[in-house]
């Protein structure tokens, strides 16, 4: 059960992924990260680029996609960095407060525990029955005791995996979204829509240079550290060379498509991915 993109990923990057995982397990210098990013470009951004024209007519808000945002770290694998997100709160300032009477969270969680336990127990019962059937099919009929045959008769029916709607009985699959629901804040600008972000970073080389200089000038270690250490804006989502109007899904899909075909933009994207550390493979 390997999806196309993961198959692609596995084929091209399996060795790198295993190596990288082993290295990360130990914590070490970054290796082959440009290679990984190029893999992301090929497996995701380029594929989107191929479909984007067709999709923009059929699904103009790109509701088939959702975005996984992966943040840069504080550990100096590259430079340390973090991100401030800005989101739409206009409606909060104007909307009238409507009081809802919902079940208290306490009772929701009480019911939730019971409900999940019930599902698991039922599922285990069905699974045990399937195991029985498996054993029975391997044993000649005459050897199965009458008792077992009786037990088998009384058990719940096996779910039919060939049925078109097999997934409807498994609650780890969601029900289809009701068609009357409007697009969420990720797709259309509304309350809580992400609008912009600012990426901060600490230029460790510069900080160390400044720190050593201040020590030479006679400052104490703590004084020098307090003066030298600072974060600064690395870039914002609406900065050139690929300014995003907002940070909705459609902006990301358009950016992915642009990045796939423009090496100059891609190089800036890589520089930012590695937190302006100058990393190369």
């Amino acid at each position: 059960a390997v999806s196309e993109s993961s198959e692609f990923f596995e084929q091209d990057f399996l060795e790198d992924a295993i190596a990288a995982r082993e290295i990360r397990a130990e914590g070490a210098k970054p290796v082959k990260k440009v290679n990984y990013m190029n893999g992301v470009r090929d497996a995701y951004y380029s594929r989107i680029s191929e479909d984007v024209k067709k999709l923009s007519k059929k699904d103009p808000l790109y509701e088939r996609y959702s975005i996984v945002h992966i943040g840069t770290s504080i550990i100096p694998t590259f430079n340390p960095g973090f991100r401030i997100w800005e989101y739409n709160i206009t409606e909060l300032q104007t909307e009238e407060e409507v009081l809802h009477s919902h079940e208290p969270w306490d009772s929701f969680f009480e019911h939730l525990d019971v409900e999940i336990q019930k599902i698991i127990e039922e599922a285990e019962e069905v699974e045990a029955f399937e195991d029985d059937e498996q054993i029975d099919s391997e044993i000649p009929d005459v050897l199965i005791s009458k008792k077992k045959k009786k037990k088998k008769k009384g058990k719940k029916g096996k779910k039919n995996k060939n049925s078109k709607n097999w997934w409807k009985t498994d609650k780890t699959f969601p029900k289809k979204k009701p068609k009357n629901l409007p697009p969420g804040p990720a797709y259309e600008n509304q309350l809580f829509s992400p609008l912009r972000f600012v990426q901060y970073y600490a230029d460790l080389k510069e900080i160390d240079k400044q720190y050593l200089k201040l020590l030479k000038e006679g400052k104490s270690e703590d004084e020098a550290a307090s003066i030298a250490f600072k974060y600064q804006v690395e870039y914002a989502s609406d900065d050139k060379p690929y300014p995003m109007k907002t940070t909705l899904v459609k902006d990301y899909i358009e950016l992915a498509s642009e990045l796939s075909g423009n090496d100059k933009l891609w190089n800036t994207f890589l520089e930012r991915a590695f937190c302006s550390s100058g990393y190369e493979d």
Partner: protein
Amino acid sequence: DIGGKEKSIKGRFLHITDMHPDLYYKENTSIDDTCHRGKPKNDGDRAARFGNAMKGCDGPPDLMYYTLDWIHKNLSDEIDFIIWTGDNVRHDNDRRIPRTEQQIFDMNRQVSELFLKTFKDHESDDPRDLKVKIIPSLGNNDVFPHNLFSPGPTLQTRELYDIWSQFIPPAQQNTFDRYASFFVEAIPGKLAVISLNTLYMFKGNPLVDNCSNKKQPGYKMLLWVGFTLQELRDRGMKVWLSGHVPPIPKNFDSSCSDKLALWLHEYSDIIIGGFYGHMNMDHFIPVDGEKAWDDIGNSM
């Protein structure tokens, strides 16, 4: 808020991840000796006060202290909540100082207390009040042994609840014990942030296999995700997801990444997106929900 106090919403929040502070880090030691000991061979081998980019050492504790202090001084009045996606402990990369379970608990507790101290609401009478809500999630280095996290309840889930008790709503203690996941109403009644324990879906966790088998913790956690999302939808709330390991095929078993992609897709009216760490690189991955349905259909 629930205490009847008025709080103004700023329309900003912070995502911070992977601090990996290393209490053995020593300034001016050799980078080649994991920044723990030895004389540097040359200037390029010198462990700097705040660390060196791309050299492979963990974070000096000062980098963490000064980072949180800088955020507190410059940004804490501007943000509504903090999404903090884990890995708060050094890597196991020094054979002379192997990590122990107790050290990992202690470090998680220290970092957690640092967050509480930094973002405490000094104007409140209640010592537990924070200026901003904080939503932590569990990293693969926050557990012992590294990457291994078994289905709860376990000693580790209990200890973690104790460490994060000020961040996790008390009503969720039992569910946290089972899934090490929870959610916080970042804006009460309107906006929630789910903290997912991604280790139950992580390929690197040898104690879990997939999200298809009903006995797997990833399967059970998906049930929790489903019920929670439906309840949030019923209440008219919107939600961000967060966790340590990004839910992509590189990191997750495909039965887990595909199923999660389905939930993202079918609840796209309320899910805004997700924040993750682990990879150390700033980038984004578009997850295709319709393709996930096709993949699952084909595989069945």
